[in-house]
């Protein structure tokens, strides 16, 4: 035993291939004591958790699942950096290698690579039950003898072998042991020394030098720089390997597998066939006809849950928000600024964060179930061809489909993509999908302009087509991004077909809890801040004279049609129709005089090219935090109050009657067909959603979020201008 307790917690890293049940084991060991953050500068999430082992504090780090330590991108480099204690990482005191017992040889490659770093290890032979079912006979005691470290059979899903694993970890901490390292042939050592000696002033370790030699597109080499001599050194080192008849790209794997053959000889008995039940299930689920049919049925259920089933829950949150607003508002009636800030800014903002939770939780319920059963990999296999050409892959389907309900859960769902390049592209394309918040705008404009002119059939088609405008722009854009913008080397799309498993309630629940909590804490704060900022821009400067002027104009106009005594009497009663009209007028005047209203008027010339007047412009600007606000803003601007919806006949008829008051188009209707089409396409393409910007920033970084916002807004404007300029000349 170690005599004195160390000042810092013991660090233990979990290392393993994807689909080994590594995260399940992590959940089992830490429960809900987890912390999720991003590694600085990259898009990989850093999961750490706390556990106590015989009185000692232990920090458990769940490293991303990977097949080898090879790294072509900074995202992939994380595992090597974390184990090597490089670039701000702290090396672990112990590695728990999670090895899939059904596939020991391939899983051991990563372990053998990591052994080079000289960190003590414990091996967890996970999915022990499945290995037995598959007819494998594994002599784990012999394996422990050969490796010289504890080897513990586990069934993480059911908590099997957990106590033994903890015991083994305790022993290993007291008596650290390493597995036998590979003995490199002389020519490999020669090539390694060539690089190490060539970079003498740089502190590059032997394993790091080998990584740079073996990885054709080495992210480690990119990181340390030395553009002057490093490429030459690596080329010479690879030449040494080649001169001994080996391909430098596969030499590492060939040699490690040779090393492992010897270590594993006699350990694994039985024929290790692919389980028969699984084959027959695959025959159905991957069948050209039935498989496709079942896929669409499953996806329909997922989509319906987000699009329809989440609705009542969201309405409940909405109602709750109004209830709290109604309860709090009178308490603050003394100070209108605070009253408005708290009710319209803060409470509305918190409601605006919570409103996303039902969809996020439902989507992650489905993703956890689909992933844990093994179906998600099959779904990706079925759909990959559709997406491969533009740099996405089969796993992009679920995020993009979710985007049709709401981009927020969709962007979060892109976590299921391992390949960083495809993940970035998927995240950036998801906001183009026509989310449900765009629908009211389409319904309003099509209902007001397309349906009266062209009939319900054309209107129906217009609505249908509008749903695919975003996707039609997104796919070629994804292709272009992959070709020209993303500098990450494309990695092969590798899909392991895992055995079918029954998901556990515990795992599914932890996934939902994790994602929900993370959204509220990390994205929620930003969304709330957006909400308050936009509130302020719409509220201030709010000078008294605005209301006074609006009132005087209104009274004067009314007095022209009826006796002024009656007007005064009606206005004295706050519930009269006239009072309501006046308060709508005043709201309209305030929004016109607000900072956002003035800004809208100032930038109107930019939108004039698309045929938009200042009212449309303010409507668009005020919908940047959340596009569904458009309808309510239009209601206020056209003096109908904020309570209009997309079916409102008043709003439709007022839009249809709206004419230009001055300028070259004076007397013409504002909403001509080209303007209406341009406005709809603008909504289809523009990223008018502060929550999406926040979530993209949290999943990637603020640079990507800003770039995506700018690109989508620019595309939307260009498309609207083109439609108007061509349409108005026809």
């Amino acid at each position, binding site marked *: 035993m170690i005599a004195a307790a160390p000042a810092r917690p013991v660090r233990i890293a979990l290392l393993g291939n994807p689909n080994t049940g590594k995260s399940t084991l992590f959940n089992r060991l830490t429960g809900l004591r987890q912390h999720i953050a991003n590694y600085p500068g990259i898009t990989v999430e850093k999961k750490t958790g706390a556990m106590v082992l015989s009185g000692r504090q232990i920090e458990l780090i769940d490293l991303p699942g990977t*097949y080898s330590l090879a790294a072509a991108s900074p995202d992939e480099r994380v595992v090597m950096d974390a184990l090597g204690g490089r670039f701000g990482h702290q090396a672990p005191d112990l590695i728990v290698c999670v090895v899939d017992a059904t596939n020991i040889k391939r899983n051991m*490659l990563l372990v053998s690579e990591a052994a080079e770093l000289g960190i003590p290890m414990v091996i967890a032979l996970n999915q022990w039950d499945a290995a037995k079912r598959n007819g494998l006979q594994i002599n784990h005691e012999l394996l422990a003898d050969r490796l010289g470290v504890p080897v513990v059979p586990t069934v993480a899903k059911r908590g099997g072998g957990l106590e033994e694993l903890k015991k083994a970890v305790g022993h290993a901490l007291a008596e650290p042991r390493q597995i036998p390292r590979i003995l490199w042939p002389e020519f490999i050592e020669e090539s390694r020394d060539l690089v190490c000696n060539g970079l003498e002033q740089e502190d590059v370790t032997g394993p790091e030098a080998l990584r740079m030699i073996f*990885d*054709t597109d080495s992210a480690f080499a990119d990181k340390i720089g030395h553009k002057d001599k490093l490429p030459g050194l690596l080329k010479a080192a690879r030449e040494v390997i080649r001169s001994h008849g080996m391909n430098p*790209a596969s030499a590492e794997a*060939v040699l490690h597998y040779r090393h492992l053959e010897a270590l594993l000889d006699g350990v694994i008995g039985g024929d290790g066939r692919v389980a028969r039940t699984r084959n027959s299930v695959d025959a159905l689920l*991957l069948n050209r006809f039935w498989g496709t049919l079942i896929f669409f049925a499953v996806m329909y259920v997922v989509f319906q849950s987000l699009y329809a089933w989440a609705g009542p829950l969201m309405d409940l949150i909405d109602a709750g928000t109004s209830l709290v607003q109604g309860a709090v508002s009178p308490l603050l009636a003394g100070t209108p600024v605070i009253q408005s800030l708290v009710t319209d800014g803060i409470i509305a903002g918190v409601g605006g964060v919570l409103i996303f939770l039902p969809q996020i939780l439902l989507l992650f319920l489905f993703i956890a179930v689909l992933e844990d059963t093994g179906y998600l990999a099959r779904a990706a296999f079925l759909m990959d061809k559709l997406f491969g050409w533009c740099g996405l892959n089969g796993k992009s389907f679920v995020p993009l489909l979710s985007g049709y309900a709401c981009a927020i859960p969709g962007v979060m769902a892109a976590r299921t993509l391992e390949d960083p390049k495809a993940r970035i592209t998927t995240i950036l394309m998801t906001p183009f999908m026509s989310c449900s918040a765009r629908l009211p705008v389409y319904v309003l404009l099509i209902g007001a302009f397309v349906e009266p002119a062209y009939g319900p059939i054309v209107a129906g088609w217009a609505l249908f087509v509008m749903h695919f405008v975003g996707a039609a722009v997104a796919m070629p854009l994804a292709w272009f991004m992959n070709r020209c913008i993303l500098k990450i080397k494309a990695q092969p799309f590798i*899909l*392991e077909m895992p055995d079918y498993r029954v998901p556990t309630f515990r795992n599914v629940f932890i996934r939902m809890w994790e994602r929900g909590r993370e959204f509220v804490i990390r994205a929620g704060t930003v969304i709330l801040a957006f909400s308050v900022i936009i509130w302020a821009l719409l509220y201030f400067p709010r000078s008294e004279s605005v209301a006074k002027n609006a009132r005087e104009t209104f009274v004067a106009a009314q007095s022209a049609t009826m006796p002024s005594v009656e007007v005064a009497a009606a206005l004295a009663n706050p519930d009269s129709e006239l009072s309501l009209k006046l308060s709508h007028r005043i709201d309209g005047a305030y929004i016109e005089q607000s900072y956002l209203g003035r800004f809208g008027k100032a930038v109107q010339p930019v939108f004039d090219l698309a045929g938009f007047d200042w009212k449309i412009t303010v409507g668009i600007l005020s919908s940047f935090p959340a596009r569904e606000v458009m309808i309510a803003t239009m209601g206020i601007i056209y003096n109908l109050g904020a309570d209009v919806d997309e079916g409102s006949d008043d709003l439709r008829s007022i839009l249809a009657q709206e004419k230009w008051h001055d300028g070259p188009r004076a007397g013409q209707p504002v909403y001509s067909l080209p303007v209406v089409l341009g406005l709809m396409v603008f909504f289809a393409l523009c990223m008018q959603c502060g929550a999406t910007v926040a979530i993209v920033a949290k999943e990637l970084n603020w640079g990507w979020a800003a770039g995506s916002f700018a690109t989508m807004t620019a595309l939307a404007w260009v498309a609207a201008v083109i439609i108007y300029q061509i349409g108005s000349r026809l």
Partner: protein
Amino acid sequence: MKTLGKIHHRKPLEIVSVASDCGRAGRLAALGFLPGRKVRVSRVAPLGDPISIEMEGQEISVRRAEANLIEVKEVK
């Protein structure tokens, strides 16, 4: 010599070489696609790509473009 991506039957095959020295070939090698290993195309996606490959009791699917980095021969 045929490459794995061009195989349209399900007969047993043996890997002859993974000749390319691009990074993608290295990834395939790490998964165990190495000379001498026995493989079989077990399934093809409905749209013709990717393909699923059976090797030593595991099933891995890759796109045909990547499978073409692997040279195979038929085993009698």
